[in-house]
């Protein structure tokens, strides 16, 4: 039980707990805020995994943009401050069972895999993850095409969402 492991366990608990709050809490704004906590925890996980770039991008993109968008959306689509009535569909217990089954199935599939409990090797000396990532993103024999496609996707989403949310009046 090293410090890292304790740290991981705390993070994991935070993530799962806040995720549960996200899906259960009544007040949608609170749900969005809990989502932010979850996302932050995930960012910490990335940091634990030495993916510092992703960690920061997670904060920038998810917390800085997506979560804010959510809060706005919630604000724009509510009549009054508090939500009344149950926020869950009737028969949510069935959904819960399904979700549990899914988790069970995933777990079973994973533990059947032989690489399940392997540990990470140290980085080779002088290894620069960010540099590697940058090269991988722009070198033609790696991922430049998916990268460009993703950018096109973003553009399309931008245009589409503007068109959708545009108030024709």
């Amino acid at each position: 039980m090293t410090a890292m492991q304790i740290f991981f366990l705390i993070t994991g608990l935070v993530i799962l707990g806040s995720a549960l709050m996200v899906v259960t809490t009544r007040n949608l704004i609170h749900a969005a805020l809990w989502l932010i906590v979850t996302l932050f925890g995930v960012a910490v996980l990335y940091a634990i995994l030495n993916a510092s770039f992703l960690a920061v991008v997670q904060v920038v993109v998810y917390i800085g943009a997506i979560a804010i968008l959510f809060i706005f959306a919630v604000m724009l689509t509510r009549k009054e401050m508090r939500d009344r009535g149950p926020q869950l569909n009737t028969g949510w217990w069935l959904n819960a069972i399904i979700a549990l089954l899914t988790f069970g199935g995933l777990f079973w599939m994973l533990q059947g895999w032989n690489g399940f409990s392997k540990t990470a090797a140290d980085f080779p000396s002088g290894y620069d993850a960010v540099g590697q990532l940058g090269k991988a993103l722009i070198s033609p024999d790696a991922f430049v095409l998916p990268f460009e496609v993703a950018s096109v996707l973003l553009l399309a989403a931008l245009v589409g969402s503007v068109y959708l949310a545009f108030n024709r009046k």
Partner: protein
Amino acid sequence: MIPLSWFLILSAALFSIGLFGVLSRKNAVAILLGIELMLNAVNINLVSFWRYGDVSQMAGQVFAIIVFAVAASEVAVGLALVISVYRRRNTVIADELDLMKW
């Protein structure tokens, strides 16, 4: 040192929670929240596989970044949809948007 299994189990749990949210939240925005959770679970997997696999292969991180892009566009479009629906139907409860039934 943390074994890979921890990450995988964590992401599986996160995924299931997100699934639950998607299945059982009333509010469309809340459903989108659930989808975000699921996407994050996927990302955790991707990154941990990168770290625990051959680190010179950046596929994991690159895919994670692409998932970021996808998530961003998904949220943008989804929320735009929700808002325009709210304008016309004055509701964001998914079950009330059931025009497509028999």
